[in-house]
């Protein structure tokens, strides 16, 4: 059953459910008319539960008991809802299939200009083609936000987002390591995580602390903890460990009840009679909403003596934590803030521009798009001066994904045309970031959408993309695009694998490997060495499909995905496959293994969950098992590659308490460790993975 067929079946199953009479259009019309003629301004329907509690039947439209909290909550929703008007849901009338963003501006790499002058923080930022242009005044920023805000969107943002970026092989990375590191998108571009290790210690986010646990000889002992000063609503997000520094990212929220500017009734939340809803009409609605402002805080600690961590600096940036990267000593911090939601409260002279370290971002560091609602704030910090901004910028946008390569940061998003599926394009903007100095390079646009996090890749400042586009009947095909260092398109291949979509991709130097899928899984290998003339070198069909690809060595490519029935497309279970890529014209499968009854792994979608390290010969990830009683449970499976076969080394049944999406398999010398927030278990690699120790984290 394909996903489409299953969706149809879900739809069918819903269609077979009777809609309650009370919701029929006639009934609703009657209710609304009744309310209208009785001028009650606000209309209430009793909830079934309240009726049940009260054991009485009233006319559903006479305002009576309504809980205070419900009032606040509903009005808050109304505000949110109204903000939706300005959303990107409407087609942009002027969308042409391939706008050329790179035309007007001089393209020059500002990082190159400023290289050798890392202290320079004042430099002039240039436009990202015509996709994002630098603001000329704060007023201009205000007007755009005001325009895109029909009203406001008040909502507490909960999720810290994982980014949608990409890439790299592990071929070079792990060679001399005696311990494992976080599985990264781009080698040399470090990423934060919630569980990390170095030569001696395992670091975990446990509640409101970071615990540092000594692992000598597999014996586990927590030697210290880091407890930042937190307020109740703050949370530890993730952290970096870099030699003698630990960089901790904390999300801070300030929540307060706000009343809207339209208030004519002099009531506050507390003064509402819990028995009655104040009578209002459209013109003077008393609105309450949860106003939440958020800040991302970076705490830098010295862990030269891990038993006694010392706070070295604090850095604050407005907005919700989005993601971060670290290259050498520079941390790049991305936060995001909905700016249009608050703009209606604020006069053009008011404070609506986000701050970093309490310093407002100057307008000439702000990039504009016409309909931007959110501000993506990016700043760089040198961990040797952890209180100070190296450089910063903000981009108004509606939604962007982030990919960070070795030399540049790319923002990308799909732009849809509601009338024509085939006109969907991906817009991209590139920013240089050498030594923390940020500036736009240019912008570009290609057909189709980037479906896999690893489908975008930078190699020596040249961008390569794999996209999937659809014709107007929804039939997919795939494209490969290559850009030069100025983001000019140099070559492309289109109409690859008609009828299939890209499921997984990896680039290595000038070769692209990617999986497309319908009922079988063709692996394609493309040669990108001539940027003006990319070529498909070979392909190989196997059953099932891979969702995650990683170079194992220069001869082998590891795929993790699903086995399927080639006729029906029915998914049978998780599968690992090792491809022989030594001869691209003659790709082969060396071994594959179907993990029966295992139906899911977080490794398929979050590369940080994968341990795949050829130097230690370990492949490990969490797998979800469907038991015979149809209950689900999780196992951690550890494999090695021996004599051209996958060989199981260890299987650990995880308890219900395991934070399986944050469980990491790691090794330090002769020991293997499984760690999440609550527990660390160690195993001896020299004695067939006998359990050495176990520690509950508190």
């Amino acid at each position, binding site marked *: 059953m394909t996903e489409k067929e299953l969706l149809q079946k879900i739809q069918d199953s*819903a269609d077979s459910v009777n809609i*309650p009479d009370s919701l029929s259009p006639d009934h*609703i019309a009657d209710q609304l008319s009744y309310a209208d003629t009785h001028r009650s301004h606000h209309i*209430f*329907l009793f909830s079934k539960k309240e009726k049940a509690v009260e054991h009485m039947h009233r006319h559903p439209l006479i305002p009576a008991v309504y809980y205070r909290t419900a009032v606040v909550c509903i009005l808050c929703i*109304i505000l949110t*809802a109204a903000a939706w008007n300005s959303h990107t849901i409407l087609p942009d009338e002027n969308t042409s299939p391939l706008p050329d963003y790179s035309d007007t501006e001089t393209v020059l790499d500002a990082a190159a200009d400023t290289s050798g002058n890392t202290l320079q923080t004042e430099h002039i930022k240039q436009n990202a083609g015509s996709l994002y242009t630098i603001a000329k005044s704060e007023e201009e920023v205000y007007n755009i936000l005001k325009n895109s805000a029909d009203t406001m969107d008040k909502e507490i943002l*909960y999720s810290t987002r994982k980014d949608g970026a990409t890439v790299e092989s592990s071929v070079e990375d792990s060679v001399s390591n005696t311990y494992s590191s976080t599985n990264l998108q781009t080698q040399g571009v470090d990423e934060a995580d919630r569980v990390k290790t170095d030569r001696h210690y395992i670091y975990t986010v446990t509640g409101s602390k970071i615990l540092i646990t000594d692992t000598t000889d597999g014996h586990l002992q927590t030697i210290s903890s880091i407890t930042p000063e937190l307020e109740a609503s703050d949370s530890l997000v993730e952290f970096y460990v870099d030699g003698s520094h630990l960089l901790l990212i904390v999300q801070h929220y300030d929540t307060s009840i706000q009343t809207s500017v339209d208030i004519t009734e002099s009531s506050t939340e507390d003064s509402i009679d819990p028995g009655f809803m104040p009578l209002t009409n459209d013109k003077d609605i008393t609105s309450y909403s949860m106003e939440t402002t958020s800040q991302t805080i970076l705490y830098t600690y010295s862990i030269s003596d891990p038993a006694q961590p010392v706070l070295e600096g604090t850095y604050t940036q407005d907005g919700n934590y989005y993601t971060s990267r670290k290259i050498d000593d520079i941390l790049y911090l991305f936060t995001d803030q909905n700016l249009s939601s608050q703009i209606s409260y604020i006069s053009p002279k008011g404070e609506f521009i986000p701050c970093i370290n309490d310093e407002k971002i100057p307008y000439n560091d702000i990039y504009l798009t016409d309909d931007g609602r959110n501000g993506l704030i990016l700043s760089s910090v040198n961990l040797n001066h952890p209180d100070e901004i190296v450089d910063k910028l903000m981009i108004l946008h509606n939604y962007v994904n982030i990919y960070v390569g070795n030399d540049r940061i790319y923002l990308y*998003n799909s732009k849809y045309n509601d009338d024509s599926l085939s006109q969907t394009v991906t817009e991209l903007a590139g920013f240089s970031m050498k030594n923390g100095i940020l500036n736009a390079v240019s912008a570009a646009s290609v057909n189709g959408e980037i479906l896999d996090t690893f489908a975008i890749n930078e190699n020596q400042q040249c961008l390569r993309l794999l996209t999937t586009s659809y014709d107007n009947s929804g039939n997919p095909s795939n494209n490969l695009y290559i850009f030069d260092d100025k983001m000019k398109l140099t070559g492309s291949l289109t109409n690859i694998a008609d009828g299939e979509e890209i499921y997984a991709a990896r680039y290595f130097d000038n070769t692209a490997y990617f999986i497309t899928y319908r009922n079988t899984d063709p692996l394609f290998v493309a040669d990108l060495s001539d940027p003006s003339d990319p070529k498909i070198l070979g392909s190989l069909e196997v059953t099932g499909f891979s969702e995650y690809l990683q170079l194992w060595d220069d001869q082998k490519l590891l795929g993790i995905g699903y086995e399927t029935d080639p006729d029906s497309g029915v998914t049978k279970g998780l599968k690992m496959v090792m491809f022989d890529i030594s001869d691209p014209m003659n790709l082969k499968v060396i071994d594959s293994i179907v993990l029966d009854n295992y139906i899911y792994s977080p490794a398929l979608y979050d590369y940080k969950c994968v341990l795949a390290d050829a130097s230690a010969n370990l492949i490990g990830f969490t797998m979800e098992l469907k038991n015979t009683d149809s209950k689900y449970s999780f196992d951690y499976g550890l494999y090695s590659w021996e004599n051209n076969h996958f060989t199981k080394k260890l299987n650990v049944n995880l308890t219900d308490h395991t934070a399986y999406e944050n469980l990491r398999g790691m090794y330090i010398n002769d020991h293997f460790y499984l760690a999440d927030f609550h527990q660390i278990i160690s195993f001896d690699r020299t004695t067939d993975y006998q359990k050495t120790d176990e520690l509950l984290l508190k």
Partner: protein
Amino acid sequence: MKTDIQLIKQAKTGDVHAFARLYEIIYQDLYHFALYTLKNPADAEDIVSETVTDAFVQIGQLKKVESFKAWIFQILTNKCRKSLKNHPLSLEEIPWELKESTHENLELDTMIRQEFFRLSDEERMIISMHLFAGYKSHEIASILHMNENTVRSKESRALKKMAVNLNPEKE
């Protein structure tokens, strides 16, 4: 489409019948969305009622008339999210009122529904937003404050999980 826009314009002036006709186009989707997200017919009924009344009161403020459906589903989505957060789902079994004509598919529909209800709150929400509200993945991403790719992979994961479970042993 044109007529919808005229209806919306009329509804904005407080015309109940215009509003009801707009509602008629989407009320099944609204109910299905609430039901499949909340898993409880009584809660779904209540929340759709609230949504409709809120929408009627607020429609005067709807600026872009073309976006009526997205707008009302946004109200509903937020209500459902709040409800899931504030009231963890009751486990009581509620009898389903099914249409009589569909008895032939009763077994399959029930099975599909059961498997769907085993998905997590977030998974049900994402699929419902796609299926019943007609949102695209970038719109879902924006509403749920998620990455677009994450939305896609979560939906795909959920559907795969369902597909595996719906297929009895196939060795």
